[in-house]
């Protein structure tokens, strides 16, 4: 049986003791779809945090290749006793200031996102929430603070398959989006918004007083984890914007606005050169584009689904 065929064996069943040992020794290998990640850690609280939000990921056996190697190591010296801290180290370099020791998970998430954004240049990497339905991708490029992650979380709890709340990874060779599957980072009010939206949502511990306020992470579903290597053809482009008290407004945007939204929100547009230009052109020409303003998640997700059924071709299962 494939390790992805059944949730048994996920991190939450490995147990924190065994996980802590693995993190402290050879490291834990996680397959996120586009990216393979190797994590080592000596911070004891980290294993519990990781178990909560990567619960459906099956730790892979020693892979032949990991794209990213990171370590979360406790700061040494007097810091160990006064205000314990944890450092994020990748390829022997510490790229960020240390975090409080009990904030290892948010440090991992931010650090890995940063590394992905800098290094994964074999795909056009958009700053976008991306979900799949009917074999096609709903792509939501947006700036921070637009409600992209909250909307991605809500859709993932209403039957859409999460590819990423942060990255739209378009593989021009395949003409399809690939998953960069990680927990959805919910911030401040959006944590309780999602708890009310779906009381059964698997949300990990809250970390208060981070640089972005309080942060908690929604675990990707088992289905999203088990299908993380299934790509999605371009489906629909939505430019989301959360606006307090706003009615749901879903209106078409002209292609030049869609183009600039994609190009501006691509981490590696300039790096990709002419290939990036052609990829963005292909996406804009291949996807209807809409602007969504919303405050009510139930209404927004329902309207998006309605528009999806009207706009997106339902081929006979376009993905293998």
């Amino acid at each position, binding site marked *: 049986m494939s390790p992805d065929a059944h949730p048994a064996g996920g991190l939450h069943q490995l147990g924190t003791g065994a996980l802590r040992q693995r993190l402290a020794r050879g490291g834990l290998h996680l397959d996120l779809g586009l990216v393979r990640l190797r994590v080592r850690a000596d911070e004891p609280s980290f294993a519990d945090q990781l178990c909560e939000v990567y619960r459906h990921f099956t730790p892979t056996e020693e892979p032949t290749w990991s794209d990213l190697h990171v370590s979360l190591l406790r700061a040494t010296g007097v810091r160990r006793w006064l205000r314990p801290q944890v450092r994020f180290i990748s390829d022997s370099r510490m790229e960020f200031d240390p975090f409080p020791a009990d904030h290892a998970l948010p440090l991992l998430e931010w650090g890995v996102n940063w590394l992905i954004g800098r290094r994964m240049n074999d795909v056009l990497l958009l700053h976008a929430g991306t979900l799949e339905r009917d074999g096609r991708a709903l792509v939501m490029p947006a700036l921070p603070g637009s409600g992209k992650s909250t909307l991605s979380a809500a859709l993932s709890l209403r039957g859409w398959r999460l590819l990423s709340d942060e990255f739209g990874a378009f593989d021009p060779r395949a003409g399809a989006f690939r998953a960069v599957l990680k927990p959805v980072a919910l911030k401040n009010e959006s944590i309780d918004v999602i708890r009310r939206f779906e009381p059964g949502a698997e949300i990990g511990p809250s970390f208060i007083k981070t640089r972005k306020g309080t942060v908690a992470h929604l675990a990707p579903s088992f289905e999203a984890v088990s299908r993380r290597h299934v790509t999605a053809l371009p489906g629909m482009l939505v430019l989301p914007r959360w606006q307090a008290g706003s009615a749901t407004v879903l209106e078409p945007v002209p*292609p*030049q606005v869609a183009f600039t939204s994609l190009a501006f929100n691509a981490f590696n547009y*300039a790096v990709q050169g*002419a290939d990036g*230009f*052609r990829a963005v052109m292909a996406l804009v020409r291949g996807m209807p584009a809409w602007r969504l303003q919303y405050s009510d998640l139930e209404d927004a997700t329902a309207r998006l689904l309605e528009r999806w059924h009207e706009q997106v071709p339902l081929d006979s299962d376009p993905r293998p």
Partner: protein
Amino acid sequence: MIHSTGYVLVPDVLVEPLGDHWVAFSPSSGESHLINDTSAAIVEMLSCESALTLAQACTALAAEVGTLPADTEGLVHEALQTFVRAGLVRAVRLPRDTHP
């Protein structure tokens, strides 16, 4: 020898129509620029010639749109300067005897 300023399209510039606009990609800057029909016409004229002076570009555009070259001069001059800053076009020195 007296020289005049000519304009050449940067090699491998890509221009594609998109809705009511055009998008031009500059390989030298890695950036893309939304341009209007007139600008796209100037880029196309440059792509057909090894180099054009401002006067030649004005004459060609005027013939295209049915107006006098003098009426297009301000617009073409501004467009060429913008293209140079955007990395789509390079200004070059041309011998005066070949480009009056």
